[in-house]
């Protein structure tokens, strides 16, 4: 019974690489060290599979499905290629090659999660480090608008609050932990200080912290529902820490202010670096969304929302991003790779996707695959196919192949190569 060690989990941006997976008869029967979501993904990966290629809901051969996909994409005026955050880097590179070939738009799911983070980082730069450095050195950790207990389940124990490192051998007791959120999540029980901010009030609170760090006094009693004393104490604690880290999530990027919130956070971290060492790390969601941004940048110069309609890459979030392109009714065909936008985009955008011919590459049945014109099953990266993924801190990690995919089922990268060949024919 083969036991694979140091398996990399293909679920979230933590890319934990210490799983032990036991395989019997090409089936995963046991997972050690995985979180609840990781274990669910690995143990249930064979359930709800797309069993064969489909065209209009009817079984087709892979050749027929690829031919139909190439026909749809080749004849579309404004094709959109979207998803890409839950597949490996080779497939992302191929998807961009295809976008260039058909003069389409290629976007990844960063556009609806940390897109605003990227906009802010492009403007102001970033102070960052690896998760290993946080584990070894950080004595102050702030979680702002994120809840690792629900979305990055092993982050606290492997990389941050509870982790034991070189200069933090006491683990949790060697660190001061702060959580900032609009509601009292379970992080309140983990944190030494829980700061409840009014919804939409993050920008003001970050700006008030900046003011205090810069030596200004606050002449009001509270900012965004947070008392002045709490703000002053937190600012002082930040300045006095040896090594501080802010992890932040969609509580900042998806609420009022969006990229301006991140700019305020970057400004705060920049100010703090006049006093001590401070870093800012986004909690990236899908396991390779950081890779989707990285590979898209290598190949086009831009991280997401890239349009090839003029034959060269142009970048404009708000125009070439999936939600905008779909809700304006502009996209007239779509290729979705390893993503389920029908379940996650606002209704108007999802509705457009249901109207136009859509092709989906996915190992599993999803809302998108149930509605799409062409469905092509693929091998799950990190389970049935190798590849590289980027952790939330930008570290590339090699994914392992643990199982053989079902007969005739190819990895995303190979299906995309077949579509490219067919379009060029």
């Amino acid at each position, binding site marked *: 019974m083969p036991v694979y060690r140091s398996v990399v989990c293909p679920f979230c941006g933590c890319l934990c690489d210490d799983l032990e997976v036991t395989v019997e008869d090409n089936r995963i029967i046991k997972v050690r060290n995985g979180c609840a979501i990781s274990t669910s993904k690995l143990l249930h990966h064979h359930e709800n599979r797309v069993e064969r290629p489909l065209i209009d809901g009817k079984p087709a051969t892979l050749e027929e499905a690829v031919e139909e996909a190439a026909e749809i994409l080749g004849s579309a005026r404004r094709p959109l290629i979207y998803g890409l955050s839950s597949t490996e880097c080779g497939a992302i590179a191929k998807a961009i090659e295809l976008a260039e070939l058909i003069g389409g738009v290629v976007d990844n799911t960063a556009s609806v999660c940390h897109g605003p983070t990227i906009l802010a980082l492009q403007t102001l730069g970033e102070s960052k480090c690896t998760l290993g450095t946080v584990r070894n050195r950080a004595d102050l950790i702030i979680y702002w608008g994120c809840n690792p207990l*629900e979305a990055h389940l092993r982050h606290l124990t492997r990389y941050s609050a509870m982790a034991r490192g070189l200069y933090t051998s006491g683990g949790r007791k060697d660190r001061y932990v702060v959580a900032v959120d609009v509601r009292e999540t379970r992080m309140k029980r983990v944190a030494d200080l829980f700061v409840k901010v009014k919804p939409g009030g993050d920008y003001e609170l970050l700006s008030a912290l900046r003011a205090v760090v810069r030596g200004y006094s606050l002449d009001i009693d509270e900012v965004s529902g947070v008392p002045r004393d709490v703000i002053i104490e937190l600012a002082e604690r930040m300045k006095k820490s040896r090594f501080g880290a802010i992890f932040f999530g969609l509580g900042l990027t998806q609420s009022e202010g969006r990229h301006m919130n991140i700019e305020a956070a970057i400004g705060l971290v920049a100010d703090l670096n006049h006093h001590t060492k401070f870093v800012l790390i986004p909690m990236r969601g899908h396991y390779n969304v950081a890779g989707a941004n990285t590979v898209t940048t290598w190949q086009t110069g831009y991280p997401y929302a890239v349009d090839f309609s003029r034959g060269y890459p142009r970048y404009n979030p708000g125009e070439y991003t999936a939600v905008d392109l779909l809700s304006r009714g502009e996209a007239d065909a779509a290729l979705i790779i390893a993503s389920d936008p029908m379940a996650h985009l606002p209704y108007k955008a999802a509705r457009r996707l*249901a109207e136009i011919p859509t092709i989906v590459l996915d190992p599993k049945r999803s809302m998108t695959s149930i509605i799409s014109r062409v469905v092509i099953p693929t091998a799950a990266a990190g389970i049935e196919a190798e590849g590289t993924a980027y952790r939330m801190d930008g570290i590339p990690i090699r994914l392992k192949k643990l199982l053989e995919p079902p007969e005739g089922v190819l990895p995303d990268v190979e299906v995309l190569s077949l579509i490219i060949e067919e379009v060029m024919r």
Partner: protein
Amino acid sequence: MEITVTLITGRTAEQGVGKEIGKPSERYQRNVNYILLNPRDAERIGVEEGEAVEVSTLHGSTRVWCKLSEDVEVGVAFIPLGPWANRLFDPETHGTGIPSVKGVEAEIRRAEGEPPTLEELLRELKG
């Protein structure tokens, strides 16, 4: 009777576990087809845990099951990301690519009838 709340969306561990079993699975649907209300807010509109509520914003409405928790304060409600929540949000991104899905004002009242099933949502999407 209806109440106005600030709606927060997000992911949950249970949604993640269900999603990885598969979107058609009962466990996924159970873990995204609900709204978390403070018990005092639920009392004001006369609903109990496990009953259906109608949630409306300027951009759409949906019916989901009601769950009660002190983790959300009075005037705030939490709804997990997914096909039920998505009907409530404005696709306008203000030039950023990202729609507003946190901190949106919503009205909540007791619902007539049960929430739609995933199949019904799909049928409606197809038009």
